[in-house]
């Protein structure tokens, strides 16, 4: 192991332990790591956005490919800085309006087309006797689950009577699903912890024999 590698391992170990220390309580080492972490990620965005967005998406098309219309988003981007000048700060609402409207315009169709229709389609399951008992039961569970969950979100009627019963079934389904999802995720999260502990035990403690 080279000196540089040992140094890197110790740097990583320091910040790993610093963040873990918050589990016990907030402390100066954590505060230091937290502030460095926050600063680095902000700086990281600067490098990434300058290169991949401002240069590759704006400057190159505009200047090298002569796509003149790309000056429009550039102008809208500049209007954002009107926020620094109180008198014309309302101008920054124009790019904001464009941003909100683009999202809304894209989402209105894609939510209905890309999510609602296909999810409805995949719920239209055959529950005939020909496909066997397991398929039948799975079909019934799915259909009842989808419908009762959906009706749980009914706003304009109190959850009483038939709607109340459906919403109650919906809540049971929701609880089963949440429990399953919670239990399922534990494994992935523990794996991540194992990764960090393996680093500390094997790599970091491993440097001790090179140093001492």
């Amino acid at each position: 192991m080279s000196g540089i590698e040992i140094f890197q391992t110790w740097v990583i170990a320091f910040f790993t332990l610093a963040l873990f220390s918050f589990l016990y309580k907030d402390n100066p080492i954590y505060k230091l790591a937290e502030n460095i972490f926050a600063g680095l990620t902000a700086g990281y965005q600067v490098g990434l956005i300058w290169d991949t967005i401002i240069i590759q998406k704006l400057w190159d098309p505009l200047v090298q490919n002569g796509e003149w219309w790309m000056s429009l988003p550039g102008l809208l981007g500049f209007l954002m800085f009107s926020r620094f000048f109180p008198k014309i700060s309302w101008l920054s609402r124009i790019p904001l309006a464009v941003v909100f409207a683009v999202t809304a315009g894209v989402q209105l169709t894609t939510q209905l087309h890309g999510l609602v229709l296909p999810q409805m389609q995949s719920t239209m399951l055959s529950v005939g006797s020909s496909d066997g008992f397991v398929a039948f039961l799975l079909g019934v569970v799915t259909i009842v689950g989808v419908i009762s969950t959906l009706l749980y979100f009914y706003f304009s009627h109190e959850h009483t009577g038939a709607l109340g019963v459906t919403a109650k079934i919906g809540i049971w389904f929701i609880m089963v699903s949440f429990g399953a999802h919670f239990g399922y995720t534990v494994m992935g999260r523990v794996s991540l912890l194992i990764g960090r502990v393996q680093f500390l035990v094997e790599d970091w403690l491993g440097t001790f024999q090179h140093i001492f």
Partner: protein
Amino acid sequence: MTLFAEAAFSQEEFSVFRGDRINALIAVVAFSAAVLIFTNWAKRGKPLYLRKIAGLDAVEEAVGRATEMGRPVLFIPGIDDLDQIETIAGISILGRVAQITAQYETPLMVPVRYPLVLAAGQEVVQQAYIHAGKGDAYEKDMVRYVAGEQFAFAATVNGYMMREHPATNIYMGAFFAESLLLAETGNAAGSIQIAGTGRPEQLPFFVAACDYTLMGEELFAASAYLSHEPVMMGGLKGQDLMKVLIVILILAGVILVTFTTKLGPIFKSWFQAV
């Protein structure tokens, strides 16, 4: 099936209109009509009943609690950018919450992860304070950009929660793996917590660690509920109508697929998204 054959044929010849998306067009038109009819209905003052949503009533109470305790309200409009509709929902709710904190002059802290959300958040909060006649109480750094990455954001916000002990934490928007990092720390700090997200995979963690959780559609309804304006709330009735329609169509599909061999698959294929 004929619809698809035609669409495929006409596409080869190049038609401007995408015939294969006729199903989506009908869905968009029907949906917009349902929402707008009831919006109009509400505008004309027709009575409109909406059931209570516990998490939403809690928002106003929780801000009140923060005022009594003299501690800040922490609001996180999700950790995604403004190209997600959930973030927009979060920003809208922030506008309502900021009006309440403005009235009571309760300190408000809104950490964000994307600069666009920062700009939108500052605008919304500033306008809410002006609207409430408390323009002087507004500070630019109520909404602040704290980090450029998911886990650095969580580390910073967690530190803030343990040091400042906000009385109320409100999470509204798009959340990912950091949902539980935030909510558990908030719980440990003793804050009242209200969460809302459209992402089913994060809901179990919010439900486990928060006092109230708005699930899926409730998040998008929240802004309308909190506005107390009939125009906004009318649309919810339209959404309900669509839900009933969806349930009927699903059941029709199930019956057709189960009992017919030809009509069922044709009916089902109509919902194909292309």
